């Protein structure tokens, strides 16, 4: 079989960016949790908030470090894998990506250092402020890269001159039509991701009968947060979907496996889309469900896949199944959060062991949902790199398939090592649990996130 360099380049980029997104989606949420703990500690003066903040700060440090390392690769891959794209759209994407990267480093250079190393050295108020600054800063970093990505889905305020996009209005570019929908959906996803991790760790300590003060606080705080955010995500996702229907209707058609736009769409709980025959097999559907969701009318119509030629359709299996994985996890999250809220209200949360056993195991749900969501939106944009303006096949660098395959294998090995070590390390920190505050000052100056976690692990 002849390997396709475009497919391989996409696969390589998908691998490195999916690996990367794991860490920001965790650290954005976790930094907000740490900031909350710091504020609670300052406000109530109760020591277990301080212990929890110190504990999660160490885990944050490892994750932030791995996020930075995997992000460095991406800042080069725009060019190594997609030189056609970089040359044509660098005038717009370059500055936005630059803001994202430099926001992250701005943080590392300033407030992150105070958060990681300053606990016993700077005034409490400054430490709390640094925690808040890191939480806001990671969200700002996301702001910029989501803006760049959204522009690729809904490009506006540009002018093409000799095949190169020139920016016309930066305000309109940054706040492009799909930006705020995507940003809120992603930020909320990050908070949900971290919420389920904190919930799982708290539940594990409760089940094991360890660190009970801290465990109850973790479980209570995360249930309180998830009770609001998990249902909110359904609303934000719905709004994002309606926005997508307006700007990228074929992506919606692929998400719903909706072929014929002249009929109302069913919602397929399961189906095996058959692109060759332009129909679905093994359908289990809610009749007119998709029309009801998307047009708020059971007889409403929306474009089907057959409304565009075959070469303009996205790879439907990726989009269709990834969407169902995301939705399934989303509904599990809502159920878990609402039921947890009910137990909390009844005062039964800390001794309903079967519930704790389930949530102790579902720390990964947010990560999988985030990656599935990105597969939906990115695969759903195909065959376009920039919607309607540049095909992915024209964006790729002139590098042969065999070379891409070799470097892909290299990244799988290197990232496999990094990820295994990182997970091992975080697991050790979790097994050890929250510790009493260090009163002695660290022995020597040392910079870098991993160095911070190393102190007493």
């Amino acid at each position, binding site marked *: 079989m002849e390997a396709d360099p475009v497919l391989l380049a996409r696969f390589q980029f998908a691998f490195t960016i999916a690996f990367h997104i794991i860490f920001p989606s965790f650290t954005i949420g976790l930094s907000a949790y740490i900031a909350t703990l710091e504020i609670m500690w300052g406000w109530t003066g109760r020591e277990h908030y301080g212990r929890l903040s110190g504990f999660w700060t160490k885990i944050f440090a490892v994750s932030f470090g791995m996020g930075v*390392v995997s992000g*460095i*690769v991406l*800042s*080069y891959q*725009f*060019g*190594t894998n997609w*030189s*056609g794209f*970089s*040359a044509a*759209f*660098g*005038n*717009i994407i*370059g*500055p936005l*990506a*630059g*803001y994202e*990267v*430099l*926001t992250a*480093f*701005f943080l*590392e*250079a*300033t407030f992150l250092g105070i958060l990681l190393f300053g606990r016993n050295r700077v005034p409490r108020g400054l430490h709390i402020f640094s925690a808040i600054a890191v939480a806001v800063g990671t969200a700002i970093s996301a702001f910029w890269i989501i803006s760049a990505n959204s522009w690729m889905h809904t490009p506006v305020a540009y002018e093409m001159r000799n095949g*190169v996009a*020139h*920016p*016309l209005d*930066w305000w309109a570019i940054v706040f492009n039509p799909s930006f705020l929908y995507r940003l809120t959906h992603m930020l909320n996803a990050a908070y949900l991701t971290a919420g389920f991790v904190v919930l799982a760790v708290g539940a594990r300590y409760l089940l094991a009968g360890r660190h009970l003060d801290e465990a109850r606080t973790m479980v209570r705080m995360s249930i309180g947060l998830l009770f609001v955010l998990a249902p909110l995500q359904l609303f934000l996702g719905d709004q994002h979907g309606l926005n997508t229907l307006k700007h990228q209707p074929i992506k919606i058609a692929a998400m719903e496996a909706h072929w014929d736009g002249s009929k109302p769409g069913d919602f397929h709980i399961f189906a095996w889309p058959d692109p060759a025959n332009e129909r679905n097999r093994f359908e289990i559907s809610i009749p007119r469900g998709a029309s009801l969701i998307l047009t708020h009318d059971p007889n409403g119509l929306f474009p089907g896949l057959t409304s565009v030629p075959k070469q303009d359709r996205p790879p439907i299996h990726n989009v269709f199944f990834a969407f169902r994985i995301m939705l399934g996890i989303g509904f599990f999250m809502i159920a878990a959060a609402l039921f947890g809220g009910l137990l909390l209200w009844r005062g039964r949360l800390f001794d309903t062991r079967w519930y704790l056993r389930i949530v102790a195991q579902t720390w990964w749900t947010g990560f999988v949902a985030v990656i599935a969501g990105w597969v939906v939106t990115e695969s759903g944009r195909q065959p376009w790199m920039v919607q309607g303006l540049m095909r992915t096949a024209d964006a790729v*660098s*002139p*590098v*042969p398939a065999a*070379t891409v395959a070799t*470097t892909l294998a*290299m*990244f799988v090995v*290197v990232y496999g*090592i*990094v990820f295994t*070590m990182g997970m091992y390390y975080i697991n050790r920190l979790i097994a050890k649990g929250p510790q009493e505050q260090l009163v002695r000052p660290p*022995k*020597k*100056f*040392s*910079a*870098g996130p*991993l*160095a911070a976690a*190393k102190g007493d692990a």
Partner: protein
Amino acid sequence: MVMFWVAVLAISMLLYVLLDGFDLGVGMLSGVAGSEPRRHSMMSAVAPIWDGNETWLVVAAVSLFGAFPAVYAILMSAFYLPVLLMLAGLILRGVAFEFRYKTQRMRWLWDVCFSGGSLVAAFMQGVMVGALVEGLPLIDGRYVGGEFGWLSPFAALCGVGLCVGYALLGACWLVKKCEGDVREAAYRLIPHLSVGLLAFLIVVFAYAVLENLPVMHRWIERPYLLVLPATGALAAIAMAVGVIQRQDQIPFTMVVLIFVASFGTLAISFWPYMIPFSITVEQGAAPESSLAFMFWGEGLFVFPLMLIYTTISLSVFKGKIDANSHH
């Protein structure tokens, strides 16, 4: 505005070469350290600052992408393999740094990753500079050289040359930061490495002048620019004196001067070309509105802040390291 971003890019690249240069050099030298206590001292000499040093690689990459997207697109696609190999080397070496202390049995493997990763990263950087000096095959602003178009005897020579240069930076850094037999061993290496580096620099300069008439004209028209290579030569003499007198601070300062002089010489030789004789600075630059958009945030705030951060990190970590400290 274009000149502002040229300056940002040049400063970022120069700082990267100087800062990560010495810790990549220490990484390569650690491969021939011989014993665990020595290797431990060498790694302690760069441990607190190596990741800060590498941030300049990212600042350079995003400045290039944002301010000179056309150049970024050509260079990254032409240097697909060297760039990705360099990144893999840098990641492996970073991970090895953190994890070698977590194991006794597997430590040798992390040590191989550490020195091997440093060597690969340094070699690839040199190869890319060499290939750029030789000239990249371009048609209509697209690279057409194939996946090994960057590989040539001259580029490979530049790869070796940069490894020698970084090793010299590393040895001078060790002299500055360490005591005892690590310092002595570094002192013994410096003469060999510096002779190697100077021979290499002369070869590259001669090649650039003889192969490219525009470069020759530049130097003949403006002979006063020869002050740069001359500074490098003087620094080399001062370094020799410092080594003979065992003045620990002098060799590193002088090798930095040699690098700055070489960097300047290279830049002046090819100015105003970013990709020699195909793309000039003006042709490669993003439009004014993109450059201005970046200027107000990145240029005015983040870049100066990164400079301050680097200065503070280095000044906090001054003086000799404690040989008995534990990483």
